[in-house]
């Protein structure tokens, strides 16, 4: 379905424009290229003491003693603070987290992973703090650790004695004080009645594994905090300034108005810099020591702050004789490490799409979030959905092959259409899976014969689709200030981390007012100035913040019309805003915005302010069936198709052509949408082929960029085709939805399906390293 994007939007008929749908240059393009844009660590700060933490060397142990004498003797060290010290001052408030209040900023009594902060060394200068941290001597009594997610599911040892739901996500309260389990959350989906497979049906089943990975935004985590009287100010590289403000107010027991959180343009994040990272420790130290502190961590330490969930899926799928998918079953285990972070949310939101974007008569999903003695896993671009997509898109492919059918044609028959109700109970709108599938297969000329050499290099093609729900329910606010000279200042708490939100929001604000490129300045999130916004995550900002911005701009337009009507002495209905200003259709009298505001206030340099909020609601899923008629505000639809060769001598995969598509509702800035589609896909190439955290007994062994492989320019496919699919969302700002995660979701299975096509081997464990491929080829040869 394709609808004219301009026909279905709430603001149809407004005169101005010239902003939405245009390829505006990023507002900070030149500053970024010259390196003049200031990230958090680039800002000039008041003098700060440096903080470096001493970290646990044990995966699971009781802390018997902390001897800080040698550390305190290091020249420049001012103080050494332990978890027990902070607990004595702040009580259980030092346990924070969005789902469970389970993570102390410094370990209290017990450590649960190698690398957990045990003591904070405060010093004059980073070098002294680091030298001091080396000298902290901790006495441990070791406990049995559990590292493997499937071992942890079975029972003892337990990472936590009891579950402690946080006050942030209110719906987990029923889990309070649950004991003797590592499973901190379980989501179940039951759709349709289980039945015997009909005659002639085909079932495929496999065990799948996605390893833990790391976000590795190149900007390192950074937080500084200082106390001014009864206020605490924080400057932090965070996606979630509003969350941090509340979290820190709760931690210190002070009013929201006493906490100021400033973010800064982020040097990438991908989920790494959100919720509670360095902020609780910085806040606790600055507040209790009445000082200014700075936490700047190394890359090795950044690997310990958060990770992407490793995930095991046991999946099966059945098609009837006519090629309709009639049943799907998934048992999903997310390894959330020692602290739950948003693991429970990931478990539910991914569990509900574990069967994929298909019409399925009967579906069952059991999705569990499991503690282990490893660094905590949290949100990562895709929010757990790439892990379940790895399962359902591999299964669907095998099912098509088992039927002797083209995998694209099989998907096309079974994909959800506009208005279809998914297995979770919520209808589809503005999520054109078929359009995305067709776009990427057309780009690869899917129906033409593929040249398939039979020698060392084997060629194959693969495709995959993906579905994800937008984060719901959430809240955005916008305050727009129109300056007397017709420039504008927009106050929002969305954080630009490379996705380009400052530019997108400037375009949305400009559209109803007819403002030109470069005229809207977006203020960097500062909780003293910019209004509440739930978070910058989950591809929610274009829709949610965008709607708040659109409403604020429309309110501004209405104010201008009222002022002009008074000036012209005509009814407001006779005033129009045009590119040249405000005009009376009756008298033809006109005034530019500068003239109008100058006349209204009688002064130059004045400002006119408007504001708006935007909220989405949901209906919580049923605890028994996991279903809801409105589990999300909307869905993201994406697809990827790959053509590649496999070198059977080296096991190396070479991607010749990668096509990716996402239904974005409407592209506010097509150039930046294409960059997000492509950027997420290149990150996905890494996840498919080599990107993984390697653990040994719970310890990260490749936590440096010498050892951790990331996609370089050599890993970019020979050809990349990003395709924008537009099915306007009925309540999106000008029809728009988000895009940041859409193409990472189907990427790894698209590549694995192409490898399957090339060498006839189904690989079920990511990443598809040369070693795995060579081993599989050797096994294949043995069997033949």
């Amino acid at each position, binding site marked *: 379905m394709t609808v004219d994007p301009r026909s279905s939007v709430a603001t149809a008929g407004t005169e101005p424009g010239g902003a939405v749908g245009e390829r505006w240059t990023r507002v900070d393009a030149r500053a970024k290229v010259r390196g003049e844009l200031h990230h958090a660590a680039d800002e000039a700060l008041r003098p700060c003491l440096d903080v470096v933490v001493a970290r646990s060397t044990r995966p699971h142990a009781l802390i018997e003693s902390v001897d800080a004498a040698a550390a305190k003797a290091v020249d420049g060290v001012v103080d050494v603070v332990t978890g027990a010290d902070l607990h004595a001052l702040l009580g259980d408030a030092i346990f924070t987290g969005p789902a469970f209040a389970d993570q102390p900023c410094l370990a209290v009594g017990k450590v649960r992973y190698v690398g957990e902060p045990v003591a904070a060394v405060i010093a004059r200068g980073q070098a002294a703090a680091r030298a001091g941290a080396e000298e902290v001597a901790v006495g441990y009594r070791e406990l049995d650790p559990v590292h493997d997610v499937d071992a942890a599911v079975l029972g003892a040892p337990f990472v936590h004695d009891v579950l402690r739901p946080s006050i942030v996500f209110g719906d987990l309260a029923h889990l309070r004080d649950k004991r003797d389990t590592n499973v901190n959350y379980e989501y179940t989906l039951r759709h349709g009645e289980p039945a015997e497979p009909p005659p002639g049906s085909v079932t495929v089943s496999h065990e799948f594994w996605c390893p833990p990975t790391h976000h590795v935004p190149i900007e390192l985590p950074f937080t500084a905090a200082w106390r001014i009287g009864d206020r605490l100010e924080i400057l932090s590289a965070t996606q979630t300034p509003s969350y941090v403000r509340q979290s820190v107010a709760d931690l210190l027991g002070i009013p929201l108005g006493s906490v100021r959180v400033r973010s800064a343009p982020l040097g990438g994040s991908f989920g790494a810099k959100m919720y509670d990272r360095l902020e609780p420790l910085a806040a606790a130290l600055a507040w209790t020591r009445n000082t200014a502190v700075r936490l700047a961590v190394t890359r090795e330490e950044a690997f310990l702050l958060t990770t992407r969930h490793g995930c095991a899926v046991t999946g099966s799928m059945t098609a009837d004789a006519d090629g309709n998918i009639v049943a799907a079953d998934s048992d999903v285990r997310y390894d959330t490490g020692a602290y739950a972070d948003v693991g429970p949310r990931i478990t539910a939101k991914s569990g509900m799409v574990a069967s994929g974007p298909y019409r399925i008569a009967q579906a069952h999903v059991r999705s569990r979030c499991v503690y282990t003695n490893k660094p905590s896993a949290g949100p990562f671009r895709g929010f757990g959905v790439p892990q379940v997509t790895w399962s359902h898109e591999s299964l669907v492919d095998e099912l098509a092959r088992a039927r002797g059918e083209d995998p694209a044609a099989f998907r096309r028959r079974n994909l959800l259409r506009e208005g279809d109700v998914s297995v979770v109970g919520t209808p589809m709108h503005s999520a054109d899976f078929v359009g995305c599938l067709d776009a990427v297969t057309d780009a690869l000329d899917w129906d033409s014969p593929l040249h398939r050499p039979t020698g060392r290099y084997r060629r194959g093609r693969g495709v995959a689709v993906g579905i994800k729900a937008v984060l719901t329910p959430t809240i955005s606010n916008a305050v727009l200030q129109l300056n007397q000279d017709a420039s504008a200042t927009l106050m929002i708490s969305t954080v630009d981390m490379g996705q380009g939100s400052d530019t997108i929001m400037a375009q949305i604000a400009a559209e109803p007012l007819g403002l030109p490129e470069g005229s809207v300045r977006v203020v960097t999130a500062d909780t003293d100035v910019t209004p509440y916004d739930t978070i910058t995550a989950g591809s929610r900002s274009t829709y949610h913040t965008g709607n708040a911005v659109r409403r604020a701009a429309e309110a501004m337009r209405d104010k201008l019309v009222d002022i002009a009507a008074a000036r012209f002495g005509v009814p407001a209905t006779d005033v129009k805003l045009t590119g040249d200003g405000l005009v009376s259709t009756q008298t033809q009298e006109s005034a530019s915005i500068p003239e109008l505001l100058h006349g209204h206030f009688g002064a130059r340099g004045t400002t006119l302010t408007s504001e708006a909020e935007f909220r989405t609601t949901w209906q919580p899923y049923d605890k028994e069936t996991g279903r809801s008629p409105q589990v999300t505000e909307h869905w993201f639809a994406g697809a990827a198709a790959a053509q590649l060769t496999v070198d059977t001598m080296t096991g190396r995969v070479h991607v010749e052509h990668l096509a990716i598509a996402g239904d974005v509702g409407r592209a506010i800035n097509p150039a930046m949408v294409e960059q997000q589609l492509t950027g997420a896909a290149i990150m996905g190439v890494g996840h498919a082929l080599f990107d993984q955290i390697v653990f040994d007994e719970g310890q990260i062994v490749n936590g440096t*960029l010498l050892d951790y492989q990331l996609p370089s320019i050599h890993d970019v496919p020979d050809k990349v085709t990003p395709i924008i699919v537009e099915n306007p969302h009925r309540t999106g700002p000008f029809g728009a939805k988000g895009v940041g995660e859409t193409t990472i979701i189907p990427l790894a299975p698209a590549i694995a399906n192409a490898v399957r096509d090339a060498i006839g081997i189904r690989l079920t464990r990511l990443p598809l390293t040369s070693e795995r491929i060579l081993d599989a080829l050797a096994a294949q040869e043995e069997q033949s």
Partner: protein
Amino acid sequence: MTPIDLVVNGERRSVTVGDDDLLLDVLRGLGHTSVREGCGVGACGACTVLADGHSVSSCLARAVRYDGVALTTADGLPAADDVVEEFVAARAMQCGYCIPGFVLMGHELLAENPDAGAAEIDAHLEGNICRCGTYLEIRTALENAARRRREATRTEKEPA
């Protein structure tokens, strides 16, 4: 502690440094925050500076060894720098954190080989990581910058 003169973007700056002080930290301390730490082990390229025109990972370089050496940082490039212009035109940035390093690598490459094409560009940039995945735009920017230089050279050579 050793007093040295760093010549940064043509300006002489007298500083006193310890033997272990990193060029990265000293340059940032002088306000050149376009020079950024990404890995601390010379594996990502975010801290790249040019020393006498040659790329250096400043996170591994001891400042004391750069006494009197001409250093270039991205923030010190001329206002109308051809590589910067082509990066802006090609939209070769997302978060932008790594981009100054790519710009300086591009300068080094084009000074050595103004005929560089995609293969040479890729080979020269293999040590720089753009986690946002903006490599295609970066390659385009440098191809265009190379073309611009070749055209400028040809114009110079043509008789008046």
